[in-house]
């Protein structure tokens, strides 16, 4: 009896120490990964801040670029970027939301229709953006005769972000509890009422997430825009004018303009700060919305 107990305790002690070792290794790997990612981001931010902040002043935001961006500011570029973004969202949102509602509410996850649509969306999502650029150039600029314009650029971006937008929006609509739908049916509420009054309001935070992702991808896109909205850096007068987006501006300054590196960093700083701000603000809206749902409405 004594002996066997000793043996038992010894093996269990070995087992315990091995478990401790495994825990330590797992913790080290997980923490190491997290710290690596955080450090990478910090380094990137520091680099951009360090090189970029000197050029930034009020004038930088109010003046148009001069001498290919070496001098002056980025006012016209901010306006073009904003317009391209608006065109993109205004066209992508209704189509995307409509498709997401169709997929989530009118087809099951395994239906042939929804499987086919989802497959096409996955292929589209994996298509390199330069291909969207070429398509946009052929379709919007040439075939529809929109030329190099903010309109062409925005619509091309819309095509590009749609697959992501639809997937996330569909997911968030599907994740609305089935009990709401059943409850609504049992009360004799129509499908459209269910969608408009119950399902979409509950899915709003998820849909906001889809919008953030689309905005982020649009703001950071260059390849799809070079051949569609072009790189004219004047202040655009209408949607039919060509306009240079911030990311194209960064690309141009660092690749084609001698001595433009400093200015490229400044533009990159503006881009990143606006991305962070948009994320932050949308997050606030989403959280306020959820809180309203749970507490006072």
């Amino acid at each position, binding site marked *: 009896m004594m002996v066997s107990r000793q043996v038992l305790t010894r093996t269990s002690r070995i087992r315990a120490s091995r478990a401790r070792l495994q825990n330590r290794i797992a913790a080290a790997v997980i923490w190491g990964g997290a710290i690596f990612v955080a450090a990478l981001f910090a380094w990137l931010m520091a680099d951009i801040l360090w090189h970029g902040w000197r050029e930034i002043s009020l004038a930088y935001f109010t003046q148009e670029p001069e001498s290919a961006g070496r001098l002056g500011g980025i006012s016209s570029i901010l306006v073009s970027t904003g317009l391209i973004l608006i065109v993109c969202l205004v066209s992508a949102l209704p189509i995307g939301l409509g498709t997401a509602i169709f997929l989530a509410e009118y087809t*099951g996850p395994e239906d042939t229709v929804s499987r086919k649509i989802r497959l096409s969306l996955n292929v589209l999502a994996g298509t390199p953006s330069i291909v969207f650029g070429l398509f946009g150039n052929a379709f919007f600029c040439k075939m529809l005769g929109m030329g190099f314009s903010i309109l062409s650029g925005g619509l091309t971006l819309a095509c590009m972000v749609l697959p992501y937008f639809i997937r996330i929006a569909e997911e968030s609509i599907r994740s609305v509890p089935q009990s709401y739908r059943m409850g609504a049916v049992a009360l004799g*509420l129509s499908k459209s009422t269910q969608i408009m009054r119950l399902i979409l309001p*509950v899915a709003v935070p998820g849909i906001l997430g889809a919008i953030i992702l689309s905005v982020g991808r649009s703001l950071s896109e260059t390849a799809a825009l070079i051949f569609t909205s072009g790189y004219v850096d004047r202040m655009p007068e209408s949607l039919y004018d060509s306009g240079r987006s911030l990311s194209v501006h960064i690309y141009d300054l660092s690749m084609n303009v001698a001595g433009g590196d400093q200015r490229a960093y400044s533009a990159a700083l503006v881009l990143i700060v606006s991305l962070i701000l948009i994320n932050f603000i949308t997050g606030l809206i989403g959280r306020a919305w959820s809180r309203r749902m749970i507490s006072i409405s």
Partner: protein
Amino acid sequence: MDITRNSLHLPKDAPPVTIPCCIKTTNLSLFYGKKAAFRDISLNLDRNSVTVIMGPSGCGKSSFLSALNRLSDFIPCCEVEGSIHLDGESLLEGSIDRTVLHKRVGMIFQKPNPFPMSIRKNITFPLREHGITSKRELEARLVQVLVDVGLWDEVKDRLDTSALTLSGGQQQRLCIARALALEPEILLMDEPCSALDPISSGKVEELILKLQARYTLVVVTHNLSQARRIATHAALFWVKDDCGCLVECGPADQVFGSPREELTAAYVKGMKG
């Protein structure tokens, strides 16, 4: 008791029918894909009765309720066979007006499912959808049903806070109030107390007894003593050959007091299931 009602079948201007009310199912079967959830259930539900449905888990009680108000149509691959008559009108043949059906046959789910809106809107929003827009009428019904379910004193000062802030028992009573606001004739309740503590559950039970005077109730429950307290009629479902079936049904006194089947006798003594 004779009552005139709007017809379920289109067109809407058909003359109202006058028939002593009941739901009558004949050889009703329900399938999920190829698998039958229950088969050949024939059951009559009388007006102003409380019919308690008992039986082991998986014998098709919830499925039976979902067939009664055709909620089963919204479950993928779900097929119903046989016939259901509501006041002599067939529910399974021809096109029916769902809005009328769901207004007449209300349903309370096992898990409370208040909508994520204020307590007030939970009740007024479905009413508005059914065409009641007068503020006075809405307010009157709101107060009436909240009083009926005994929730008025608890929530009268917070009608505009979200229904999700209520406790589980309060949420369930709100769901009952929401269904009552539509003035149904028949209320299907799927284990309405299973997620509730004994006190809330007792309140819901009292409520059921009170509602019996005005409504026809079908209550699924696993709680035998509760079943004895509330039932005027009882039905026992069972699983045979991997498929639900009806073992026995009848007035509560008979089913609990002198059951015809041995299985029922064992079940109501609490020895089986």
